[in-house]
């Protein structure tokens, strides 16, 4: 199935049915003689449909009043009433899954941390966090815990002040651009959402007399909340996972570790620690990135320290510093008088393999 097939098939449909016909075109082009009208209501046959529907719906409502609930209806109700009773809850009040919040979590994990994560890994972990928070909010609201909008607003404003300080040092503008969200949406979907979550959780803990320090009770509460939420919001969770193509059974890349490097031009100092593998095309790939980064930091520590020298704080090789390191390495690799030239060439070669492995997850320059 390709573009041409889809296009031809749709063309075929419109041609076969002569759409739009000349008559139809003339009717549409009579726009100057027409005024905006209420669609449908003008057509007598739809008017007839309207009357039929009103009568039918009235009959259905009447019949529903007379007929007793079916067995399956009873089952569904009792299913929720059992779980409500099990957790001593009043009602089912589901907090919707927050898509923007999730996207922000994924981006923050990929770009604002000192480790590299594939998008799949970042989504997987962020999905867990989203479920935990949403489950706790659902659980608290189903318990009858309430918070006023005004209270949430106040806390969200405090959070916004903290965020503005954070924004000054972190590249949030890149985040807004990448996710196509405005600061206002960030406030509403992230800061306000966080504030609501914190207030609901605090009140629930107070109501149940659970202290955060008591990790056993606290984690039990989370586990109950997640169990309850997954039960009552199963459909929402499935749709969300479908939308983001999230596989909760995240598969680990099954690649065979290398016994000896073949396509590289220098001797690795410790091959097993480098933890590279081959993909289906036989190309070298990072298969245990954290081990590889650890190896790099250990073996090339002196050179990296030299590159980083002069910076007030230690800067790790992280998503948002990667390109700076690479630029410095390129300069060293071109400088024949530098004692780090060979090491810089080696590391650039490893970085090349890294970029190849992660090119679907990060933008490299």
């Amino acid at each position, binding site marked *: 199935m390709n573009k041409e097939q889809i296009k031809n098939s*749709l063309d075929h449909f419109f041609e076969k049915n002569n759409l739009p016909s000349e008559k139809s075109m003339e009717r549409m082009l009579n726009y100057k003689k027409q005024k905006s009208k209420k669609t449908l209501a003008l057509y007598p046959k739809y008017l007839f449909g309207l009357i039929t529907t009103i009568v039918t719906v009235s009959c259905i409502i009447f019949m529903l009043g007379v007929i007793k609930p079916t067995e399956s209806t009873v089952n569904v109700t009792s299913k929720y009433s059992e779980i409500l009773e099990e957790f001593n809850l009043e009602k089912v009040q589901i907090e919707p899954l927050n898509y923007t919040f999730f996207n922000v979590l994924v981006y923050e994990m990929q770009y604002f941390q000192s480790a590299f994560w594939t998008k799949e890994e970042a989504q997987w972990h962020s999905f867990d966090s989203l479920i935990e928070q949403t489950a706790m909010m659902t659980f608290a609201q189903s318990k009858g815990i309430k918070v006023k909008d005004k209270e949430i607003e106040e806390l969200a404003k405090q959070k916004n002040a903290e965020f503005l300080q954070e924004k000054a040092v972190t590249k949030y503008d890149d985040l807004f651009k990448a996710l196509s969200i405005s600061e206002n949406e960030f406030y509403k979907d992230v800061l306000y959402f966080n504030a609501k979550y914190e207030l609901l959780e605090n009140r629930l803990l107070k109501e149940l007399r659970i202290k955060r320090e008591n990790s056993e009770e606290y984690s039990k509460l989370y586990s109950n909340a997640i169990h309850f939420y997954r039960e009552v919001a199963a459909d929402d969770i499935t749709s969300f996972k479908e939308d983001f*193509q999230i596989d909760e059974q995240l598969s680990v890349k099954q690649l065979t570790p290398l016994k000896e490097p073949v396509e590289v031009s220098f001797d690795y100092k410790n091959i097993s620690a480098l933890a590279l593998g081959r993909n289906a095309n036989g190309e070298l790939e990072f298969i245990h990135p954290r081990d590889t980064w650890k190896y790099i930091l250990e073996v090339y520590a002196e050179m990296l320290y030299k590159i980083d020298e002069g910076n007030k704080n230690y800067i790790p090789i992280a998503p948002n510093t990667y390109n700076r390191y690479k630029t410095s390495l390129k300069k060293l690799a071109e400088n024949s008088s530098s004692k780090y030239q060979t090491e810089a060439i080696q590391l650039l070669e490893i970085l090349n393999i890294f970029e190849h492995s992660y090119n679907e997850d990060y933008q490299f320059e």
Partner: protein
Amino acid sequence: MDFDEVAREYIKDLFKIAYSYVKNVQLAEDIVQDVLIKAFERQEQFRGESNYRTYLIRMTINRSYDILRSWSYRNYQLTNTFTSFFNHSKSTEDLVEERSSNKELYEHVFNLSIKYREVIYLYYYLDYSVKEIGDLLDLSENTVKTRLSRGREKLKKLLKEEEAIFNE
């Protein structure tokens, strides 16, 4: 360019877009006519930020969504369901023919849910780029890409199922 000429140039595309949403000829005609009336009345207000075709297409999409959300459209759908339930007008020959022939690809496209149908339609049929679709539908490029890919997967799945039934 004279507004009549503009209307004549784009009317087919607008109709096809409206039809892809409401799947009903009369409704699609109504939508296009409403759009043309509004565009005609607002000729002076067009700020030229996008090209005129895109401007009209965006209006058509918005108007189509209005119709889909309207109570009268839901009523129309309900009436249609009842009508098709009570009117078994298909002959035995029709049914045999229907069962023995593969469904056309366009039928599967029209049966996709709106969020997939609209991006597939704009991308494959009207040759809009991912970025342009994002601008038209107020979606990020990533969302458009995801929907395109999921829409394609769904189409492939439907075609495979169809093939399996046909081969039985």
